[in-house]
């Protein structure tokens, strides 16, 4: 080396893309992220609350799966979240940002409750339940259809449009809850007649919903992967140019897919109202319409992976409630923990796709001289 080479200007770190890690190694990175998140949460717990992090974590687990009843509740939460996630998936795969699942599911629930209320006296249960299902599908589909028509024909922004539709749905439910509330003006609907609840399989009232969503998961997987319509969704999502080039009617695909997306949201509303809550209120969906987007993305739009991601979220949610009540902390703290864990999991995707290179160590530097 003739010239003295100064290397201390080199940036401390730089980022390089690497071949994405496959299969179990990627899972390992994700598992590592959860462990790291738990460590950070532990430190934070000690710092903010003076509680023993181990006991906090154990109440998280107990809260989620501590008793058989809790396990069923967890599975049911998982199923409903999964159902809405399955619903938004075709839309997101098509790069149609449907953030209106909340509203689509809510109108589905409203339609179910309305059927029970107004047709309950004139139709027998075995006939009314299918009617409720169809009504919820139609309601959800209409809620998906409206923004998609505007998007397909006039290019309006679907994000804002679907978001607005949420508020309309919420206000609509509030209105009907007020008008038909018992006692009048309380803002609460009377639970629907027990005759019209979804069938209880064995002695478990949630099993029907869980099995229903399980079947739906398989159907959605097949639809996306093996059907011509699913293929069209992928092509339109990847490139509208390619779709036009090979002669796909892009407008038709957008509208059709959003009708499907809205319809499945409607089914989620039906399952919630007819199978679990037995009434409808403006908070029936409880933000799942938005959480579902995260579930779907984390699973990279694969319906089977979504079982895992929705399990994770439902698990953290149930556990968080227990933390809040057991340790007399308010909801915010458990939400912090949930937030940190999800942040780490999303962040781990970065380490699966990129590697961070640090400035060369001192030792190597010395060898150069």
């Amino acid at each position, binding site marked *: 080396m003739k*010239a003295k*080479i*100064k*290397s201390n*200007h*080199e*940036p401390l770190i*730089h980022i*390089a*893309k*690497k*071949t*994405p890690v496959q299969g179990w190694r990627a899972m390992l990175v994700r598992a590592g992220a959860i462990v790291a998140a738990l460590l950070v949460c532990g430190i934070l717990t000690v710092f903010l609350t003076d509680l023993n992090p181990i006991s906090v974590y154990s109440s998280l687990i107990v809260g989620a799966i501590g008793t058989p009843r809790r396990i069923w509740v967890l599975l049911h939460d998982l199923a409903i979240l999964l159902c809405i996630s399955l619903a938004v998936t075709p839309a997101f795969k098509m790069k149609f940002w449907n953030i209106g699942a909340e509203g689509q599911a809510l109108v589905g629930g409203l339609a179910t409750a309305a059927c029970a209320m107004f047709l309950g006296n004139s139709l027998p249960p075995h006939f009314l339940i299918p009617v409720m299902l169809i009504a919820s599908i139609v309601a959800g589909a209409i809620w998906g259809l409206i923004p998609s028509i505007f998007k397909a024909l006039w290019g309006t922004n679907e994000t804002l449009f679907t978001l607005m539709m949420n508020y309309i749905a919420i206000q609509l439910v509030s209105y009907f809850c007020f008008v038909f509330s018992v006692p009048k003006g309380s803002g609460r609907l009377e639970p629907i007649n027990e005759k019209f609840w979804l069938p209880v399989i064995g002695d478990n009232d949630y099993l029907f919903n869980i099995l229903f969503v399980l079947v739906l998961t398989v159907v959605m997987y097949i639809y996306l992967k*093996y*059907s*011509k*319509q*699913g*293929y069209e969704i*992928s*092509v339109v999502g*990847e*490139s509208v*140019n*390619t779709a*036009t*080039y*090979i*002669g796909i*009617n892009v407008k038709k695909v957008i509208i059709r897919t959003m009708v499907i997306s809205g319809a499945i949201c409607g089914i989620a509303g039906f399952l919630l109202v007819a199978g679990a809550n037995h009434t409808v209120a403006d908070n029936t969906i409880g933000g799942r319409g938005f959480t579902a987007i995260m579930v779907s993305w984390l699973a990279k739009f694969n319906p089977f992976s979504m079982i895992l991601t929705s399990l994770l979220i439902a698990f953290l949610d149930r556990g968080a409630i227990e933390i809040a009540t057991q340790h007399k902390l308010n909801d915010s703290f458990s939400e912090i923990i949930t937030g940190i864990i999800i942040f780490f999991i999303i962040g781990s995707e970065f380490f699966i796709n990129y590697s961070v*290179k640090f400035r*060369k160590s001192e030792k190597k530097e010395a060898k150069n001289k």
Partner: protein
Amino acid sequence: MNRQVAIELKNISKSFGSVYANKDISMCVYQGEILSILGENGSGKTTLMNMISGIYYPDSGHIIIDGEEAVISSPKDAFKYNIGMIHQHFKLVDVFSAVENIILGLSGSSILNMAAATKKVKEICDKYGFVVDLNKKIYEMSVSEKQTVEIIKVIYRGANILILDEPTAVLTPQETQKLFSILRKMRDDGKSIVIITHKLHEVLSLSDRVAVLRKGEYIGDVETKQTNEAQLTEMMVGKKVELNIERSEPVNTVERLEVKGISCINRDGIKILDNISFVANSGEILGIAGIAGSGQRELLESIAGLQKLNGGEILYHDPKTGFTENLRDKSPVRIKELGVRLSFVPEDRLGMGLVGNMDIVDNMMLRSYKKGKSFFLERKQPKNLALKIINDLEVVTPNENTPVRRLSGGNVQKVLVGREIASNPTVLMAAYPVRGLDINSSHLIYNLLNKQKENGVAVIFVGEDLDVLIDLCDRILVICAGGISGIVDARSTTKEEIGLLMTKTNRGDANES
């Protein structure tokens, strides 16, 4: 020779994932020389230069300027070392004038002295012989003018080392000559010019020295005077290559596609196609030459049913039935239903012809998935087709389930051309089918087109390399600003004749020379 080193690279490496873009490269650029960096696409030329100009940061190795190690982690750092790069895609603000773009982003006193800036820019223009209207807005400029602005911009910032990434790709032969004379003047002024290219004749006519890269590795450098085309090709490819295109005489030609006076007005009210008429015959390759963006894309897309027309008609003479169909304003699906076997290799391969994230099998399916009444997809035939194309066209891929975006440019193109040919077309349109391909792949594509021609297909080939157009086609249609400025016989025309036609409009508002 006692030459002053302007910049020295030592053991530079850079990888993207598991792929080495540059591997252990050491080289020098001297002051007052024109150095060509020659290499096939994907050989790492642009990556290497991007590291000098601060776009990328090397994984390892050193860049030494004036005996000191330089750390270039942003284009701003590069300017600190007087290095300027002119990229293939211009980075100019459309609504600003030339001067405004040139001084954009420079710090100075907080009051902008436009007059002084203009004066300084003018001095640079006079010194090197740039001809450009400094107050013209960028969006009114031709590609060549925009490039001039980019070069002035870099010099205005005091660059002594200029790097040009494939500067002639968008220029006519005449414009190229003009650019070369300016570059020579700059060299005589002591500046170092590095030009990235894969066109051999340009290397030979312009540069003083040639450095060759192959597959990310530095093969060596030679004085231009002491080398020739054959040696350079061998260095570039690693083996001897036959560079001739075999052209057969057209036989049994009949009129297949007749375009009659088509016009097209875009959203801004500008005529992108202006009364275009021509005939494409079966068993013949019709070339289309023109400056990039003169309406080539719109012309092909109108025929493919992707572009709405404002006038004229497109007639297809069916060889089987003898009927004539008007394809104007028919959708691609409708055209297919009429039994017109039209294949189209669009310019934008991954954005239009293929879906990058899908594997080869699913990309094969794009053309055929609708077949049959089943609700479900049928992947067996597409899979066989994929395997056949991989085998016949020697596509380099781990397997048929690899997403096409992971393939190199040449292999992507083989997949696309292979699929389009597989449907047994009667008309085959290909837009820039060899852009970005190495010499071997390019010749493979030429052979495929020639074979189609011999099978009686009417081939329409839009190209940018005039040498290739002249060697491959039977007739060449020259398009300029949306209109036809001439149709010439490829066997008797010259590059200069086509070059002139490329800049001559029938409206007479361009540089008639």
